[in-house]
């Protein structure tokens, strides 16, 4: 069943940890800005427009397309590090733009560039993580990376609010500090992380910039039936994965506790995510990644049920946040690990990008549909409907993924 005894034997590579720190620095940078952006937009720029929300769907579409393109470019050129570097760099440049952006159009442009950067870097970076890990500890490696990443997501807003607490109008200070973290991340990636070609065939590996015309990537390398099944499974589950935002809104309509802490509910989710990312990754290496992926969606189902309960109060709100955290810990890194497992090394970034894109697009459909149901039938009926649908899909997916969970990893 398992290629090399307990998957916990192999240590997490220092490259994975470095990539985790790069992500942490970048997340401190981006989340510190996202946390205060609403305050900044309404308080300083003086916009009350909500047109912003409408553009969001378009950005998500662009981001999904860019993600696949970046994965493909990374595989084809054999330069995952530099494609990821370009993505991180683009987001850092967007931070410079923030310092000068005044007005809605400028701000929108800056955020678009930031999102593009995020779309570009994700798949090549995950391919690097995968290439620097043993097949037996992929779950643990991705877990470690996601843990560090989430530490950044938790620290960023905290840092931003501390700055605003000390300097109430210190938005420019937040932007400068954010830029500093982004630059640190880019520098660390550029200087320290080696460009590991996922196609580990030293005999054929030439510096790719001298011969980009000798790609090893073929689209038909993505025809592994296990990858296809994963894409179908992830897409099916994604169709019933509504954004956390909706769950928070649901909790908020339920009671004063959730309203008062509304801006901070995600912190509860993030803390659980970061605490559990490594344990779940290790567990996934041991008992099967597909299995943990399915278990994660059971936690999501439980979160829906808790959110739909007609009672309110702090304990239920907290339970819901914990369940959401479990969901992320058991699915986010695991998905990348599963996609790596089912993709040959030379097509890995594209394979990971494909899985992440399927998830992103299906979740976009889920959130749009859910929003519609929310207003047609009310929030409670809508969430119960989604919970029932998810309860039906989970066993189907469990069967669909059962084969791959038992198949040995390619090494």
């Amino acid at each position, binding site marked *: 069943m398992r290629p090399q005894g307990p998957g916990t034997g192999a240590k997490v590579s220092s490259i994975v940890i470095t990539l985790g720190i790069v992500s942490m620095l970048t997340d401190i940078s981006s989340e510190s800005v996202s946390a205060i952006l609403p305050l900044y937009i309404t308080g300083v720029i003086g916009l*009350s427009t909500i047109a912003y929300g409408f553009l969001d769907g378009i950005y998500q579409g662009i981001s999904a397309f860019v993600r696949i393109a970046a994965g493909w470019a990374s595989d084809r050129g054999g330069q995952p590090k530099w494609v990821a570097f370009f993505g991180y760099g683009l987001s850092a440049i967007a931070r410079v733009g923030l310092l000068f952006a005044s007005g809605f159009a400028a701000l929108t442009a800056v955020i678009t560039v930031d999102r593009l950067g995020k779309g570009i870097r994700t798949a090549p970076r995950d391919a690097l993580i995968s290439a620097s890990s043993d097949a037996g500890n992929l779950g643990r490696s991705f877990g470690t990376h996601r843990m560090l990443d989430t530490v950044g997501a938790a620290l960023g807003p905290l840092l931003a609010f501390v700055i605003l607490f000390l300097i109430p109008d210190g938005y420019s200070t937040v932007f400068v500090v954010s830029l500093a973290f982004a630059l640190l991340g880019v520098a660390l990636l550029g200087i320290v992380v080696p460009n590991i070609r996922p196609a580990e065939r030293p005999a054929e590996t030439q510096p790719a910039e001298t011969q980009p015309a000798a790609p090893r990537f073929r689209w038909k390398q993505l025809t592994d039936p296990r990858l296809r099944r994963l894409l179908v499974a992830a897409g099916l589950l994604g169709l019933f994965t509504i954004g956390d935002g909706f769950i928070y809104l649901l909790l908020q309509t339920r009671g004063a506790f959730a309203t008062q802490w509304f801006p901070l509910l995600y912190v509860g989710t993030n803390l659980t995510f970061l605490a559990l990312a490594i344990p779940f990754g290790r567990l996934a290496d041991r008992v099967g990644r597909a299995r943990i992926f399915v278990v994660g969606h059971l936690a999501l189902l439980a979160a829906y049920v808790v959110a739909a309960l007609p009672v309110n109060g702090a304990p239920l709100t907290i339970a819901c946040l914990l369940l959401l955290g479990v969901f992320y810990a058991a699915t986010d890194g695991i998905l990348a690990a599963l996609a790596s497992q089912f993709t040959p090394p030379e097509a890995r970034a594209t394979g990971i990008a494909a899985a992440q894109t399927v998830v992103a697009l299906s979740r976009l459909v889920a959130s749009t549909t859910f929003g519609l149901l929310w207003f047609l039938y009310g929030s409670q009926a809508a969430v119960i409907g989604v919970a029932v649908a998810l309860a039906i899909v989970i066993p189907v997916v469990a069967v669909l993924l059962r084969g791959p969970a038992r198949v040995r990893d390619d090494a």
Partner: protein
Amino acid sequence: MTGRSRWWLLSAIAALVVTAATVFGVGEWRSYQALQAAPSSVDVATGPSLSGPRVIFRNTAVGDDYGRVAAVPLDDPGAPRAVSDLECDRVDATSERTVCLRTVRGVITTFEATVYRADGTHESSWPLPGIPSRTRLSESSRLVATTAFVTGHSYVAVGFSTETVVTDTVAGTSANIQEFEFTVDGRRVTSPDRNMWGVTFAADDNTFFATATSGGRTWLVEGDLAARTLVAIKEGAECPSLSPDGSRLAYKKDLDPGADARWAIAVFDLATGDEIVLPGDQSIDDQVEWLDDGTVLYGLPRIDAVGDNDIWAVAANGTSDPVVFIERAMSPAVVREG
């Protein structure tokens, strides 16, 4: 590059970046401290708080009174302002009550709405889901409307949406007007991106006007609290404000629809349907307050200073250019009696 020189390069970059950010941050903190220590940059009255007809507002003059609620006599807006201890982001008041929306700053930042009695004592408060946007009391002081942004943690989460709640202080009930039945030209709008904000109340304590949006279009709506309905009466008007005589609405009108809004104030006659766009060069993003039946007030950011505003006055019939009414102030509320 050797391993060692890589680390040297990285350390050098890190030192440079961290130093630059720290120097900037400390500089900003120092200049904020200096501003705080400075006496208020406008004349401040001392003595008992103001009673009688007055304009209350959020004081935005830099100095130790920044962000506090202040008042000037209605007949002498240029007089030194009487500053209270109350800190609010948005404020509205009648002779009986004051409603204050505020950001409770901290490492954990939260938001709340508080109602105070005429004597300044605390009556009730409740949490808001995000940044305060608009608030209005009905003329009888019975109804309170609050609009706050519902801010998710990231710009991906839910996008921007608003929550507008009308609270009946006598009945002790509150209603989220987004749940009301909303119709445009007789057709019900159920789209999930609906949003409502900027309430103004009529004298009957049941009828109100507000803004509704869906699919990138914006409507002025007339609401009925008892029937829980919203009916669109005009497209392209935001943040209405009913004149004291109840005959006209002043609102923001986007003169240049597109991503970059350019809002002017327009006055709409409810009986005739005539609309007059008032003169003014700067884009206005505020809910207008009527000084009297002939003049409207609104806040505008000062171009030269971040976070500072002036309250402007302009004739409601469009016959004169706007003039500064109260310097370094925003969120005006006219208390006509008491």
